[in-house]
């Protein structure tokens, strides 16, 4: 059997000093907690150190695997609930299969936990067009969270036949789910890559510029890479403000001029705009 000290030491808020080993009642009996005491501060520092080290390990894991570490123990569940542990959001077509099963309540909970993301890479494929957010949540509450809430504007889909329109509406539902996760980290997110690998015909929506004030401000987001048409309108539709954005890379598709204009208007510090058309309709490799 492997040594017991190893990974478990990540999993427990460690006793930083002998005082940490005392039972709480011995420590605080009849007295308010003194968080300024050296003992309490030592414990707090040790917990933070352990949590940061766990975050370093989680940096190397796909987001779902990091979330799943909660299942190991009650202590780890508490640690993993800290918004400081998961710093990178990575969604792939494979993990999307699981994300789509997350109930409305779970998504809400995750949005509260994933509030300190620094980078995000979201890649989806044709699955998002074929199965709606409501379809895989047996037993979930009827009003499943397709990302829209009362204050959200309905997804706008322009052109195409009925089937294509419905598919696009489904995809926009998922986009909203993931966009909300990103918005939860609006204050910390630095880079993101938003990719849709499907082959979709480009469309040019006839949309007015948003006249209402920005809804979400990404204060540190410096670089965005857009691959595929699905995400092109997210800044417009969700009224994003991107005061720190310096680099916008648009690849694999011709962005609709209205949407490009919104990205530029929302990004006063934009210095690098890279429209890289490898092929207007090509799908990026998985």
């Amino acid at each position, binding site marked *: 059997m492997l040594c*017991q000290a190893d*990974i478990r030491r990540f999993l427990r808020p460690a006793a930083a000093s002998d005082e940490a080993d005392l039972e709480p009642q011995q420590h605080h009996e009849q007295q308010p907690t003194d968080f300024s005491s050296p003992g309490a501060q030592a414990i707090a520092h040790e917990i933070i150190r352990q949590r940061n080290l766990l975050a370093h390990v989680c940096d190397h*894991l796909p987001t779902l*695997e990091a*979330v799943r570490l909660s*299942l190991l123990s009650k202590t780890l569940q508490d640690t993993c609930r800290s918004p400081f542990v998961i710093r990178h959001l990575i969604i792939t077509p494979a993990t999307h299969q699981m994300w789509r099963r997350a109930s409305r309540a779970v998504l809400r909970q995750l949005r509260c936990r994933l509030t300190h993301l620094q980078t995000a890479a979201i890649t989806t494929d044709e699955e998002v067009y074929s199965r709606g957010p409501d379809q895989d949540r047996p037993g979930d509450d009827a009003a499943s969270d397709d990302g829209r809430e009362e204050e959200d504007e309905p997804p706008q889909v322009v052109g195409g036949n009925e089937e294509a329109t419905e598919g696009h509406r489904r995809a926009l539902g998922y986009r909203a789910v993931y966009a909300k996760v990103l918005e939860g980290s609006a204050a910390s997110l630095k880079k993101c890559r938003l990719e849709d690998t499907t082959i979709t015909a480009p469309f040019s929506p006839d949309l007015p510029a948003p006249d209402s004030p920005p809804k979400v401000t990404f204060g540190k987001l410096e670089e965005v890479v857009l691959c595929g048409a699905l995400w092109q309108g997210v800044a417009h539709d969700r009224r994003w403000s991107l005061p720190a954005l310096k680099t916008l890379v648009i690849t694999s598709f011709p962005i609709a001029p209205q949407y490009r204009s919104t990205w530029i208007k929302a990004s006063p510090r934009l210095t690098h705009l890279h429209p890289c058309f490898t092929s207007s309709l090509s799908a990026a490799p998985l």
Partner: protein
Amino acid sequence: METAPMETEQRLVKLSSSQGDVFEVEFGTACYADVVKQMIDFTSESSDAETIPLNLKTTVLEKVLQYCDYHRDNEPKEIPKPLPTTNLGEIVGDWDAAFINVDDENMLYELILAANYLDIKPLLDLACAKAACAIKHMTPDAIREHFNLQPEQMTPEEEQEMLEELKWCTDGGAA
């Protein structure tokens, strides 16, 4: 009087472990760790031959110095996140893979702490990647079994609640 760069490079620095063992290493090796460099800068002002005490066990300090000595002239490869494979050799190169392939998993943990303490980011990254490799693709049950983790005291209700909360991201929750 100022020390010439060449003299500085050849200068030897004494570092002692928490167990009292002293290692004499080249300045460049010692300074690979930012914290040690700061300590050297600080002690240089007071005394030339002062030994710098580090709160690391002898075996851990020896291992850390081995890493610093190699990488002072060989920049480590950046490790992609998340790990594309659990075979670290494919990602970090043979030397690093062999270095971090420690038999004693407690040593791995000690290295993570040491890298964090000494602020050696590439070593912290490497050791954390190794720890991540150990648990990547494993189910929680498999991780518990692998590391012989004893379940903590949890009521059946708490356990059920936890399983429900994470059902969506486990194989058991497959639709």
